């Protein structure tokens, strides 16, 4: 309780602040328009729910989504895709956009942790992370080109594990799908992924001190045609209790 | 080796019904219009098509007995010359001919040697290295025959062996073919829609109409006593149906003919050869008992005479010379008198068959 209270206070403060910004800039009091939001694949389930809440609060707005791997999304922005907001699963990727002045003022809005997804019945008998070193275990990870892959590499290094994966998928959902189908004995995925597939997959918890944290930044794209609305959405995701509450339900951790 | 065939094949609406004997050492022509089933008959004999009932016996070997026995083409000792010859386009002429012996297990060398001797016996040795698309139609016909004979079959089957050829080459190839099949010695069956081929090449003719045998016999028997309009037209004679009694034929559809066969009673056919008919502008006076009137329906020039089709009771076709045409000044619609001597008419019972031997 003593941990939550200061956070809650801080939250109410910044929510108020966030709501204050648009009106301070002297624009139309009633926000309207359409936003295109590029979001990391791991946000596929949660972002539409947040968008619904946003649209309910501002009825004249509409949010469209473009889900893909974080690097793909950044490549699209670099190539000039008409996107208003980008949310990635990697701070280093969003930093590429900041450095080239394509995105502005990124905010960390959530965190995610890794977990070991195993098929129902746990055929590989995995109970802790070191079990991943077994010979002949079919382990799937993401490719290092995508955030869940570099996080997995970091995870193995942090725990000084010698593991060999049999596949390096290009997005985390493919790893999960192959665990669910039983073709993999284990897959390194996000906590939120197993939550989304609750009854079709089991998971083995990785304790906090062994785990690797993934931070999710969200940012307005510099070239957006709707800068006020885009910033309002960014603030909503980061600061509103509604959005943060939804993120929690989907297993995403607090950003602080 | 003779072939004893008594079977039927059904393909959708079409039914082929055959009961005949192909004699050993004889050349049988199967004559019939398109769709009469003659190619199916050949395919059945070759073993390329199964039968639905009956049996077929080659010599003393049962090659088909529905539904259990079906000897495959490979084991029938038949040589087939296909329509359009079906020479293998990717093999040279020599390899086409050597294909059969090689398939029967001869060595490559022996097969080639046999092919060479086949080519030599047909006088086309120089064609050996050519591809089928580099030889003429007449040459292809010979190569196809050589290929069929190279396996030394007991039975030789030919499907329209001359129909792919133009008129000029046809005569020469027909003569050559006659020599070859007469020298073959086994049982020969060939299918044709050309009565001339049948008359010139065959010892015996089977006429197929709508899947069944309309008539069979020697070429001269067919010419003398056609049983159906199709055969009569093929033979170029008038066939008149009627009821005979004491030398008088009451023609079906009208008219009366006096025939010499006074003993004939009941349903009968009369054959009236076109050249035995005389045409007159005025009613003729004379000994001819059969005189009747009609109008010219059509004039068809043949190479040395004119065919005159006449609407009358009974309708007939007559042939006259060009000078006769000039004298009579005939044109379509001209009223005309027809006469025929009784003795030129041959009448016979319906269904009378004269079998060869």
């Amino acid at each position, binding site marked *: 309780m003593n941990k939550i209270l200061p956070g809650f206070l801080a939250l109410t403060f910044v929510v108020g602040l966030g709501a204050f910004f648009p009106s301070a800039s002297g624009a139309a009091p009633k926000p309207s328009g359409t936003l295109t939001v590029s979001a990391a694949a791991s946000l596929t389930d949660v972002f539409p729910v947040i968008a619904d809440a946003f649209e309910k609060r501002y009825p004249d707005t509409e949010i469209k989504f473009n889900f893909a791997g974080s690097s793909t999304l950044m490549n699209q922005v670099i190539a000039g895709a008409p996107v208003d907001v980008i949310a990635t699963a990697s701070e280093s990727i969003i930093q590429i956009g900041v450095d080239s002045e394509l995105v502005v003022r990124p905010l960390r809005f959530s965190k995610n942790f890794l977990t070991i997804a195993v098929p129902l019945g746990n055929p590989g008998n995995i109970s802790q992370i070191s079990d991943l070193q077994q010979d002949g275990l079919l382990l799937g990870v993401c*490719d290092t080109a995508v955030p869940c892959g570099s996080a997995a590499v970091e995870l193995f290094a942090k725990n000084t594990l010698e593991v060999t994966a*049999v596949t390096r*998928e290009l997005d985390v959902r493919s790893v999960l799908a192959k665990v669910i189908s*039983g*073709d993999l004995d284990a897959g390194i995925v996000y906590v939120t992924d197993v939550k989304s597939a609750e009854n079709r997959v089991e998971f083995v918890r990785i304790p906090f001190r062994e785990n690797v944290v993934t931070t999710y930044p969200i940012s307005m794209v510099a070239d957006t045609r709707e800068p006020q609305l885009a910033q309002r959405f960014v603030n909503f995701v980061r600061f509103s209790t509604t959005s943060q509450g939804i993120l929690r339900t989907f297993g995403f951790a607090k950003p602080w | 080796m003779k072939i004893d065939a008594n079977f039927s094949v059904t393909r959708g609406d079409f039914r082929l019904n055959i009961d005949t004997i192909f004699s050993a050492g004889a050349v049988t022509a199967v004559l019939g219009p398109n769709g009469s089933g003659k190619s199916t008959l050949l*395919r059945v004999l070759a073993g390329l098509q199964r039968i639905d009932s009956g049996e077929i016996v080659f010599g003393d070997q049962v090659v088909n007995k529905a539904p259990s026995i079906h000897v495959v083409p490979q084991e029938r000792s038949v040589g087939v010359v296909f329509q359009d010859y*079906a020479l293998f386009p990717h093999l040279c002429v020599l390899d086409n001919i050597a*294909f059969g012996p090689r*398939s029967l297990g001869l060595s490559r060398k022996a097969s080639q040697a046999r092919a060479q001797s086949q080519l030599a016996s047909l006088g086309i040795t120089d064609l050996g290295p050519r591809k089928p698309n580099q030889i003429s139609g007449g040459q292809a016909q010979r190569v196809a025959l050589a290929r069929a004979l190279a396996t030394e079959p007991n039975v030789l089957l030919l499907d329209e062996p001359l129909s792919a050829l133009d008129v000029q080459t046809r005569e020469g190839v027909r003569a050559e073919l006659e020599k070859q099949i007469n020298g073959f010695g086994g049982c020969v069956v060939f299918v044709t829609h050309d009565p001339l081929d049948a008359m010139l090449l065959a010892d015996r003719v089977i006429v197929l109409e709508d899947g069944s045998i309309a008539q069979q016999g020697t070429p001269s028997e067919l010419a003398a006593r056609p049983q159906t309009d199709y055969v009569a037209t093929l033979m170029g004679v008038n066939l008149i149906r009627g009821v005979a009694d004491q030398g008088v034929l009451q023609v079906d559809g009208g008219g009366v003919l006096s025939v010499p066969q006074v003993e004939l009673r009941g349903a009968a056919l009369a054959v009236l050869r076109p050249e035995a008919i005389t045409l007159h502008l005025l009613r003729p006076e004379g000994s001819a008992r059969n005189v009747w009137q009609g109008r010219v329906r059509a004039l068809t020039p043949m190479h040395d005479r004119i065919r005159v089709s006449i609407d009358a009771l009974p309708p007939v076709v007559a042939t006259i010379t060009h000078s006769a045409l000039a004298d009579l000044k005939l044109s379509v619609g001209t009223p005309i008198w027809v006469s025929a001597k009784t003795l030129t008419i041959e009448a016979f019972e319906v269904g009378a068959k004269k079998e060869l031997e």
Partner: protein
Amino acid sequence: MRNQRAPLFLLVPGLIALLFLVIPLIALILQTPWEAFPKIISSPQALEALRLSFVVSLAATALAAIFGIPMAWLLAREVLPFTGLLRALVIVPLLLPPVVSGVALLEGLGRRGLVGGFLYDTFGITFPFSTVGVVIATTFVAMPFLVITMEGGFRSLHQRYEDAAATLGASSRRVFFRITMPMVAPAAIAGLVLCWARALGEFGATITFAGNFPGVTQTMPLAVYTALESDRSVAIALSMVLLVVSVGVLVALRGKYLQTRAS
């Protein structure tokens, strides 16, 4: 060149189509990092992917030939009941998005799949995440190209040649290898090339069924896609290699089998 003027209503859309097809390829050539090119394509990962692509595409083409040509014959000769239905089933992988093919393969031959489950439980055999798995996925997607081309070839071959060979005493095996196959050789070559090209470019079914691991299941298209996530110039260089191979095949067979023949 024919002495015919193209009407505008055909000329304009036709030229647009041409530009549409050519511009991306030109862009690819222009964007290729030529200085770094030798280094990129001689990197171990690129060489592995290239080697794997050739091995897999050739193996898939061989499998398609061994099993697909007989199937094409069965369809062409209509010896099986419901040939029309069977033909439609065979063509389905051709129309299916390859990813869906991959999912279907997982359901059928995956470790817990319909047949794959039995194979794993009985013999301990699994296909996903192995090169064999890549070959299976690739064959699944590429074989229909060979089958439909060959079926057309068998159909257009008149039965009388096979009949003639049979009456000459040739066994059905001899008829097939000495008469039928040589006569449909042009269709066979066209079909094999199409099949091989499709196998070389296979991506969706492979990554879905067999996964993505360098040296084992990462073929060229997977390497391109993986590189796209990290280093665009590597992806372009690898794409260039595939483009060169495709154009090379086209040139090698120019006019010979892939052209529509007038005669």
